[in-house]
């Protein structure tokens, strides 16, 4: 994925998330995470990503 593609897919994602509405956003993100599990298809990498995403230290 190059910079422009990242840019586009980021924008698409934001717009879809907007349309989903704030109330439905959490289930949407959870479903997206599960679908991504399947695509990544590598337990070690998924575990590392879970760590990485995990709560932001303020």
């Amino acid at each position, binding site marked *: 994925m190059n*910079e422009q593609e*990242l*840019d586009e897919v*980021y*924008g698409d*994602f*934001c*717009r879809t*998330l*907007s349309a*989903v509405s*704030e109330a439905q*956003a959490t289930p949407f993100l959870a479903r997206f995470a599960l679908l991504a599990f399947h695509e990544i298809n590598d337990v070690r990498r998924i575990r590392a990503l879970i760590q990485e995403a995990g709560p*932001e230290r*303020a």
Partner: protein
Amino acid sequence: MTTSNPTRPSRAFVPYPFTATRHAARLPGLVGDEETGVHRVLIVGAGPVGLATALGLANHGVASVVLEADDSVCTGSRAICISRRSLEIIDQLGALPAFLNTGLPWLGGRSFYRNDEVLRFQMPHDTAQRLPPMINIQQYYIEQFLLDACKTRRGLIDIRWQSRVSAIQPDAAGASIQVLTPSGEYRCRTQWLIGCDGARSIVRDAAGLKLEGTSYEGRYVIADIALKSERPVERLAWFDPPSNPGSTILMHRQPDDIWRIDYQLRDDEDPEEAVRPDNVIPRIESHLQMMGEREDWSPIWISLYKANALTLNRYRQGRCLLAGDAAHLVPIFGVRGANSGFEDAHNLAWKLALVVSGQAGDALLDTYSEERVKAARENLSAGIKSTEFMSPPNFAFQWMRTAALSLAVKHQWIRSLINPRQTQASAYAGPPQPVLRRAATEFQDGPAPGAALIDLPLMIWDGRNSRAGHLTQLLHPGFTLLYFTHAELPLSLTAPLADWSKRHVPVRIVPLFVKVRSSNAGPSGTDISGNLWRAYDAQVGSAYLIRPDGHVLARWHRATNDDIKHAMEWILHHE
């Protein structure tokens, strides 16, 4: 003196260190309330775009009248970032030295999330470039320097201050204009009317055209302050800084020890309340403290900004043409407002000049509209992306931005999302293949038809003397045929080019030699390093035909007289 007490009472405002000359109103010769004669071109608005259009027309020998409601150049905080492409245009308009003397050049910037640097960006630049990718300069200087250039075109530019256009009746032959001045009211006629009258354009309304697009709700406070600081000139952005948690802050250094500070208001803030000095000053104070700025500072100007992303569908309606903010409103993020306006003016001036003088059909003006509407849509799409990041329109953009910023501290790959996507030169669609009579793949490199020239260093010869210069300095207000050669110019090209010039469409042939000294009597160039030849994928006999606005019209490896004729007929008459 330190200013460490955040509860300190409000600071006193100081004026901009610039005094605008006030210009008196002036009435033209009238019969009753009617100006005698018909103007060929009348421009409404002496902002950057109106002045650039008048100067462009003057370059082609076309006189214009400029009607301006105000009595001076603008005040307050408006455009500050002027791009390399704009500077190239300003050079053609004869105003570059003043811009470079006063403006502050810069190459890139840094962005911070909370306490961490998350982006360091550089705009495309190398030592072969003549001009910096961007300069910072206040809009009052922009307008003043263009105005100074107008004064050198006596008899060609008639600026009338304190002259507000109050009514317009367009018709098949031009338009009738009603003008209000403090000395009285009058009517005048023009064959062509150009609306450079900004966001609330009266010309746009008279032409029956409407802006379409999106207006954003997010509000920014825009402040100019007087502050002495030796920080380098760069674009600085802070997301959620400790000085103003939850806010986004932008800073730019301007000439004369002035700094621009923009910050985003929260959705729950009342804009009228937020823009009051006693609310603005503590926020700036706190931020300057966080940055470690110890010098005393004073506010100069505070205003509110709300992003718009709007354009007309067409910039021509009969004999009315629209340019600049009158034609499109782009968000400030990415600095495309005045910069795209300069490109409008530069695209329009030569086309209108050829139409007015009868050398081109008026369909040429439709290409102004097509090319610049397309450019505006590209500018808007980039400007919208910048705005969605700098001023997230809803929870989704806000959440994703926070996620991206927090990951960017560690992850390089995500940082491109934070890049401010600064303005770039527009590229237009070139002529269709049958007109070029060659395969598009003939060249491996170099600016394609429609693209702006790539500026590169070379030796410039004026017949007698030589000096180090750059390619774009060989352009002139007409068409230019850049001809790559080792020796003589072929007579088969020079003779027909002289014919065009007899038809008052100046086409100048400029030979470009590689390594060898020029023997040409007129202007020519020598590419000492061979870099220019390489960048243009040139062979002996390659030719680039350049439009008066510096965009490539067509190119061939072995141009014939017929090739050039086809390309010229296509652009002039759409044949």
